[in-house]
């Protein structure tokens, strides 16, 4: 059987890859994809712990995380499309009107 620590290590690695993606890349679409990577890493942790404890609550939470992620992606991409329509760029460095 697979030790729980391996699952958590894999989840941590994928989460950190997502964090680095958000920090390093300037394309808004890649940043969205990195956020999805982070959410999936956390989903893996939830499922692993749910399996460890023998309860279904972790998997229920994964279910809700997936649905919320779907809603967030829809709204986020709509915002990106609206920004791109006005500003013709998907680079987050160019959208800095709120900057002091």
């Amino acid at each position, binding site marked *: *059987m*697979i*030790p*729980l*620590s*391996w*699952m*958590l290590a894999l989840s*941590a*690695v*994928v989460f*950190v*890859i997502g*964090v*680095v*993606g958000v*920090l*390093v*890349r*300037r*394309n808004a*679409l*890649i940043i969205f*994809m*990195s956020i*999805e*990577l982070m959410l*999936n890493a956390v989903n*893996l942790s939830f*499922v692993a712990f749910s*399996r*460890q404890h*023998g309860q*279904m*609550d972790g*998997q*229920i939470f*994964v*279910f*809700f995380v*997936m*649905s*919320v*992620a*779907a*809603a*967030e*992606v*829809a*709204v986020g*991409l*709509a*915002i990106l*499309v*609206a920004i*791109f*329509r*006005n500003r*013709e760029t*998907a680079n987050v460095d160019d959208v800095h009107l709120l900057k002091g």
Partner: protein
Amino acid sequence: MIPVLFFAFAALLVGCSLMVILHRNPVTSALFLVLAFCSLAGIYLLLHAEFLAMVQVIVYAGAIMVLFLFVVMYLNLKRDVEHGVHIALRRGAGWILGALLLTEGFWLFGRHWAAGPASPHEALSAPVGNTEAIGQVLYRRYLFPFEITSILLLVAMVGAVVIAKGRGPHVGRTPSPGAATAPPAGPQEPA
């Protein structure tokens, strides 16, 4: 056999995640993310979470990533070209911070490394399948969050349509170089 499968799926997942954040072309990154989601579904299958594996493929790889690819191709972005010292500095800082975070995580949890297998309760879950077990909990204890999620999805759907549709004379027009100037009539920013 199962550890071999786990290592294969884990290597695929980590490799595809790295390619997502490293590749210049957004379309290639999206396709690598689809492959990462499918390998994660394989890991869910190893954890005996069959329903979640199928939902992962259907919802994440089949709906969310398709939406991503729609938007990527609609925006028609070119390859990311970023040059300059400040870009390289920020990129280096991002990688260093990521390595720091990973080291910190392993050091913090290294002492209390979670012991025990990831699936000890084989006999308990044998009578019911994963889908039925999830259903028994979802529709009894978590019925209220389930219904609220449906309202959340409705709100997201309405919001996405309103934001992406916009107002003014540019409704229905594809992005063009002339769109950079402010359209003459009506507020354009989403309310």
